[in-house]
């Protein structure tokens, strides 16, 4: 399990349940490594601010993370973490490798247009 304070997604079925039951979901699929830790930190920081978004992580090396690793939107990705954003169960945006706070924030604003709670 990843050492973060985010919701941990451990199975493909839990992943499916999460995106079905929540309108806006951001999942960071990675390891406890240099490119991933900063993204988890950003998500933890943003979680209270974006209460209409469910923030979660998933271990990249867990075979159950195949819905993210094999998503067509992640084709060509060769750097972890794979960070994916779902709206009403549909994958609407995916990024590869480390992202900055402004990059993450701009995707959240663009994809999850609800006003911040």
């Amino acid at each position, binding site marked *: 399990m990843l050492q973060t304070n985010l919701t941990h997604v451990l199975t493909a079925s839990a992943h499916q349940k999460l995106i079905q039951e929540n309108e806006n979901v951001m999942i960071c699929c990675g390891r406890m*490594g*240099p*490119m991933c830790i900063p993204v988890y*930190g950003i998500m933890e920081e943003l979680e209270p601010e974006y209460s209409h978004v469910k923030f979660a992580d998933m271990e990249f090396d867990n075979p159950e993370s195949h819905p993210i690793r094999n998503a067509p939107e992640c084709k060509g990705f060769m*750097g972890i973490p794979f960070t994916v954003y779902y709206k009403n169960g549909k994958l609407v945006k995916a990024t*590869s490798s480390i992202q900055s706070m402004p990059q993450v924030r701009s995707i959240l604003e663009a994809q999850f247009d609800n006003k911040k709670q």
Partner: protein
Amino acid sequence: MPEIFDIIIIGGGPAGLTAGIYASRARMKTLILNEGTVGGQLVLTHEIANYPGVESISGFQLGNIMKKQALTFGCKIRSNVQVTGFDYSANPKIVEINGSERFFGRTVILSPGGEPRMIHVPGETEFKGRGVSYCATCDGDFFTGKDIVVVGGGNSALEEAVSLTKYASNVAVVHQFDQFQAFPYAVEEAKANPKIKFYMESQVRNILGDDSVKQVEIEHLPTGGKTMLSVDGIFIFIGYIAKTQGFEKCVILNDRGEIIVGTEMQTNVPGVFAAGDCIAKRYRQVTTAVADGTIAALSAIEYLRTN
């Protein structure tokens, strides 16, 4: 009446966190403002085996311990903020974050750290995470059975080139000089590896691809001859630069953009100190950053006592 901090520390890597520990333990009202994740480049290190007193620890764990220590002593920390303005000649000194919020401090310690140097060629940003990488341990396994380029000629570049041969079929090391800066052991190990080929006195000019990297164009500097390498990835290890952009408006930097400090970590501006990878110095280690942070905090405390 706005809250006035005794010490505002800009940057939450090992230098900034150590300064935060010392300052807050001395009951100074202390605030750390950090642009990224607390821990700085420390959290980017998988294993630290040469930090005295600790046999082996991940950078992430060590950074978290330092953060916890600082918080325990009452230090306030704001992370993932962007410093958008400052006036260090004012009294108290002013630091603005995110274009709106202002903080006031009687002294300031600058410890923004460093960041990986980019090669700034077409394709580098576009293919980040799609074949362009700065971390072999993170992304090496994506290149199993593939051909890659490694850019650089220091210890990191050659050690990572050797480590990447665990995955890649062929590794082309591209280095701009005719000799390596790496220690002899690293050079020998790389040269002895049959999977590694060297392109000396050469620089990358272009990174090309579609969904991901497919080709890297290099130029042989003495002749100007161009070569197109068909590869799936490129790893860049050409060192770090100080994150001091904008600070030239307030403190004296050297020609490498590093802050010039005295032996007490003081800058040319009274009440402004600097510590860690952002200062002009030769060795950049967690231990040297921690030492700088200690000196900067003690100097700031002394400044507050006498001014």
